[in-house]
């Protein structure tokens, strides 16, 4: 009895020490997380209930649910929410298959594949401001190169206003797909390299063709990583602000306004030429509702994608 007490005491001590060590390891990140993630969130949540024009402008005034009520009656905000869903849906629809097929093509050991991977990945590390400027030069209606080529090749008879209200969203999606496809391609390559060669070999021995192997073996075995890639792409698309800000600033007439940019503009000017009067309280309310919407979409996705964890 006495011996078992001694054992359990030393065991407990070891567990405490182990825990202590683990928490000590976690502490640096935890402090940073609290300072730069949790604190701003609490700050934002607090100002949802205040009217506040920023430091020096006015004293924060408690207004209860006024800001939230204003959000629900704000037509532009709900237009921005609709635009966000269109943008996110279109971006994911194109970027995931494109990234997957690029990964399939470039995963093989073939001369030049490494260089091609680097070239496709390069837009990911490019400044989004530069990217926006380049795409503006390519797509603008008066002297853009895209129109010039399309007309030279007799694909179109007159210039298309790519950045006009009818086409701006498409242009935005093209820019975003181009800018992000390399990143997702790398994730897919990592996933493809995890697939057991034995499984692929047995499929071939069983007489499966290339397409059958891809459909019945490769894609199902990519399930867990595909789930993560899709989740990352959903959250990225819902919070994407840079591409919109540098290419269209949410225009024309809010045709490309997305909810993240709509909230942002109540805190900071979208471009150097625009002056704003900050509305931190309303901006906080918009950002909070937007975060809730993005959160609900992510949770729904996680529920719907449970099956993807089951690897054969």
């Amino acid at each position: 009895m006495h011996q078992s007490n001694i054992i359990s005491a030393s065991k407990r001590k070891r567990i405490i020490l182990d825990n202590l060590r683990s928490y000590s390891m976690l502490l640096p990140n935890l402090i940073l997380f609290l300072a730069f993630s949790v604190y701003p969130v609490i700050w934002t949540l607090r100002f949802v209930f205040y009217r506040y024009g920023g430091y020096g402008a006015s004293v924060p005034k408690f207004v209860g649910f006024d800001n939230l009520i204003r959000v629900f009656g704000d037509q532009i905000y709900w237009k921005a929410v609709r635009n966000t869903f269109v943008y996110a849906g279109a971006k994911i629809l194109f970027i995931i298959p494109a990234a997957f097929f690029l990964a399939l093509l470039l995963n093989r050991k073939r001369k030049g594949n490494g260089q091609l991977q680097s070239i496709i990945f390069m837009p990911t590390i490019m400044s989004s401001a530069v990217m926006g400027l380049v795409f503006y030069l390519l797509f603008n209606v008066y002297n853009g190169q895209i129109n010039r080529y399309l007309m030279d090749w007799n694909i179109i008879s007159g210039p298309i206003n790519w950045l006009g209200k009818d086409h701006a969203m498409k242009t935005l999606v093209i820019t975003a797909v181009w800018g992000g496809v390399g990143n997702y391609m790398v994730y897919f390559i990592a996933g493809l390299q995890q697939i057991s060669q034995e499984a692929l070999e047995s499929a071939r021995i069983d007489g499966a063709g290339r397409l059958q192997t891809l459909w019945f073996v490769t894609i199902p075995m990519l399930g867990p990583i595909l789930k993560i890639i899709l989740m990352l792409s959903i959250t990225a698309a819902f919070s994407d602000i840079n591409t919109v800000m540098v290419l269209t600033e949410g225009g024309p007439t809010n045709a490309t306004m997305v909810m993240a940019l709509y909230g942002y503009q109540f805190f900071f000017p979208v471009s150097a030429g625009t002056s704003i009067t900050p509305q931190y309280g309303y901006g906080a309310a918009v950002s909070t509702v937007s975060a809730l919407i993005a959160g609900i979409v992510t949770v729904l996705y996680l529920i719907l994608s449970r099956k993807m964890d089951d690897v054969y």
Partner: protein
Amino acid sequence: MRRKKLTALIMTGTMLMGLLTGCGQDSSEAQTGTEIKAEETAKAQEEKTATKDEVKEEAKEESTGEKTTITVWTKDRHDAEYMQSKVDEYNATNTDNIEVVYEIYSDNYPQAVDMVFQNGDAPDIFVFQEQMFRNYVNAGKYADITPFMDDEFKETFGCNLIDDYNVIDGKCYFVPTAATVCRLFYNKDIFKRVGIDKAPETLDEMVEDARLITSQLSGEGIYGFAANMKGAQSALSRSLMKQGERELGIKFGYDFGTGRYDFTGYENLVSAWRTLMSPECAFPGCESLDIDPLRTQFADGKIGMYISFTHAEPGVYANQFPMEEEWGCAQLPVTDGKVVGAEHYQPMNGYLFNAESTHLEEAWKVYRAIFTNVDVLRGYYEGGFGISTVPAVIEGAQPAQYYLDNPDLLICDTDAVYPSTPQEANVDAVIVEGMNMYDSMAELIWGNGDIAAGLQDLTDRYNTALDAGIAEGIGSEIRIDGFDPMNP
């Protein structure tokens, strides 16, 4: 096992110290917590010694009459060379032991001011900017400069002291010495090519001229009219809203005579703009056009006319985007050419003083010697860096050639400074549900919805917001009995 534990503890300590000291460590330079602690102590002691030395230096500076540094912040780049030369000249010649540090913050200037007010490191003098002034004037961040003004100053700059603008409750916070106003800029060569010999004076002429240019020259890539509609606020606040001031005597939809918002009078203007922005008149892609791409196309001879500020455009076509064809400048066209109200001009080149500066007297000396020195201001005006509003400067000055060629660039009798609208005075007091005036008007201009109904809706929403602000006690009705828009 013990060794493993020890290593883990050391590593944890290292990471923690790295975090606490606020800097990451390269793995190749990994140190133990004790070493870092020792270094930190040494560093702290060094810093302590350095601080003591600095205090000693400051004391020595005072006792030996060393120079006092006055920091001046500006957001303007176009006059940087000229102003820096004047600052250098002052630094080399002044006998007050003052050294002026002139710093330019062109991007996000208000945000930079926010930062320094929060961390207590604000400069002694700031160039005026509307938003930063409004944000901090009530918080007592700016010094009242009235006590420093002598009779000579009041005589020279008295006409630039405007009640409820730079003079609030008898306290003067800044004195503008220049101004900018909005005008129509047009390409004289393009106008000549289609047989038009003068700039449009009425809205109908403006639309017809734009239509004629587009119909005759669009095959060459030349169009009648353009606006930087990428941002509705940026585009319309410099154009349609300014036309509204001349046509209706209303500033940003607010009628000072009735103390109410009324956008319904803008119907003619919005209707004309709908045509101007249509393919029969407009340069293609105006929806996504920013002001600089617009200027490049105007400089390239592709745009017949557009509306912008007078302080910037002359310099742009002389230096930034040199223009071969001849450009002209004219007053903003209004319906039937009938001007009912003055156009609000934006006073510029005012300087605010940091109320917490310990060198206010020296700052004033610098301000008088450089920024309100009549000779410096005359050189500024003659150099074409800005349009002077100081009579003593204008008298006897030889304005830059483009001012002589285009007298409409200058402030004239039909320009004046309007009071602030309730929303300008306090944005929290007029919180409008739905789209603001710029986005609403842009929607109407692009053909979305009935103009009269849209403007009535805008009027109702702004007045509802105004009433709510007044009811809450944070806003106030600004009504001026017998308001004369020609002399606001």
